[in-house]
């Protein structure tokens, strides 16, 4: 069973398709980075996954079930953008809210987390700092003991220290529970060390999806004389191509097979940010797993 499967998923607002033809399969236990520029449709995709929206085309299955149904809702947790909390509630009230609304609630976990972070239970949520509010929202989500945790821009509007703390808290919880996590961000550097699966969304379509390690291994950055570039581009998949008068820099997808190269080319690996930027610059290029590769 996959943690998340989307088939031809689409969503439109009026006549405008904000998400179109999204097919995607994420194995359980992964930490998925959903990356894309602002307005790419990340939030819409996440809302479809957690059942806040209904698709206008295709379908999505979460942990084998339909999103929004009672059985699925019990097993997921969602941290929406801006980390909504009831401002008039005390932190203790928020925990009570979680306990009353969720049968799998682990109050001990939430209280321990908040105690470690030094967040007083009696304080009104509205009077906490932004970082503390994010931690309370994350605690409420984690104490639900989800099998799939979905976070929409969890690091936006946080200062660098709070970003670090939130991310560390999240990773500790992932390591303890083995749950699947999907988190969106438009800043790739936030995700580089923590995620092992990449979904790149651009203009409402999925451009890249797959295991980050595999993706990095498949892509190379080649630098060589400009006059050799056309010949090479005919033989390999070029994702991004930037040239000066004399020099060409190509980000290519090797698909595993070894290509004999002219010795005048220098080659090196790419990092996640280079990879993402290269694809974003070329919206026509795509790197999607062939159907046979959709494996657990």
């Amino acid at each position, binding site marked *: 069973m996959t943690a998340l499967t989307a088939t031809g998923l689409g969503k439109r607002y009026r006549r405008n398709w904000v998400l179109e033809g999204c097919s995607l399969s994420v194995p359980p236990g992964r930490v998925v980075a959903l990356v894309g520029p602002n307005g790419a449709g990340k939030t819409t995709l996440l*809302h479809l996954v*957690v*059942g*806040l*929206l*209904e698709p206008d085309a295709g379908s999505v299955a979460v942990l084998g079930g339909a999103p*929004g*149904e*009672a059985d699925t*809702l*019990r097993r*997921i*947790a*969602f941290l*929406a*953008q*801006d980390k*909504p*909390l*009831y*401002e008039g*509630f005390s932190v203790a*009230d928020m925990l*009570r*809210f*979680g306990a*009353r*609304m*969720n*049968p*799998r609630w682990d109050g001990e976990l939430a209280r321990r987390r908040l105690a470690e972070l030094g967040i007083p239970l009696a304080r009104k949520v509205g009077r906490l700092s932004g970082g503390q509010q994010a931690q309370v*929202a994350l605690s*409420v989500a984690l104490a*639900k003991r989800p099998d799939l945790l979905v976070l929409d821009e969890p690091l936006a509007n946080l200062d660098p220290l709070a970003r670090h703390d939130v991310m560390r808290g999240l990773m500790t919880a992932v390591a303890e529970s083995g749950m699947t996590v999907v988190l969106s961000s438009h800043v790739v550097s936030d995700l580089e060390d923590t995620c092992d699966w990449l979904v790149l969304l651009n203009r409402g379509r999925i451009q890249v999806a797959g295991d980050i390690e595999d993706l990095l291994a498949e892509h190379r950055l080649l630098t060589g004389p400009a006059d050799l570039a056309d010949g090479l581009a005919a033989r390999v998949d070029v994702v991004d191509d930037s040239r000066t008068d004399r020099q060409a820099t190509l980000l290519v997808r090797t698909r595993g097979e070894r290509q004999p190269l002219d010795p005048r080319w220098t080659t090196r690996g790419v990092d996640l940010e280079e990879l993402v930027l290269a694809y974003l610059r070329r919206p026509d290029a795509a790197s999607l797993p062939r159907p046979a590769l959709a494996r657990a």
Partner: protein
Amino acid sequence: MVWLTWRQHRAQALVTAGLLLALGVFLLVHALGTSGAGPEALRDRYESVQVYLSWLPAVPLLVGAFWGAPVLARELERGTHRLAWTQSVPRRRWLGAKLLCLGLAVTVAGLALGMIVAGWQSAFDGVADRFGDAAMFGATGVAAGAWWLFAFMLGTAAGGVLRRTLPALAVTTAVFLLALFAVLDARPAYAEPERRVVEDKSAPSAGLRTGSMWLSPSGVEVETVPECADASGEAWLSCPLEAGYRMVEYFHPADRYWRFQWTETGILALATVLLAGPVVYRVARKPI
């Protein structure tokens, strides 16, 4: 869900309960002070408070604004619906529990207000009018509860459709006032009025008067008496009688009070159910 509903709306609940209690105590004291008063004093004492209580039909407006409008608008405005609707409680159940708890609370409060006012009126025998007085009719009996529930659902629907508390308040106010005047206008038509010829002018008309005509000596009903077209002042009042006309009164007898109460309750209940449509649509089908 019951806890959450209470926690989110306890301010309104406590304020409403407090105001009802204060009004109840005040009217109780006021009613107890009538012992031994003559008919004239009784009327003065009744009217001194009735003037203010005639605003009671507008009170459900506050219910719509403070109980109804925030239910959805506040969540949608602050994005907390994304928190509430991704817990383990499916949002149909979330909505059902909220509407049930809050609807029950406002209905009970409205009925309680109706009983308080009716109890106060019962101390003013022969003076108080619960039927002919349009304000008192809507503020007593089952209609009082129906008005509160209708206003609550109106506020909830406005909040759900507009997604903002402030515009929802404005729309709730406008629609409620329209509905109020429409119902006041339609109320006499809930049944065919009875007709009677007033033989003795001093006989008080009981129940809800809907209109009157002049009956000519030849048995024709006219609105204005042609013989008295030029009469004015004192003469205008006595002229028709001198010309042999008698007054015909159309009215609903006092024992129709409960029938009218249930008719009005039925109309408001239907409107409430219709208003639930957009609420369910917003929550179950088209959340953003």
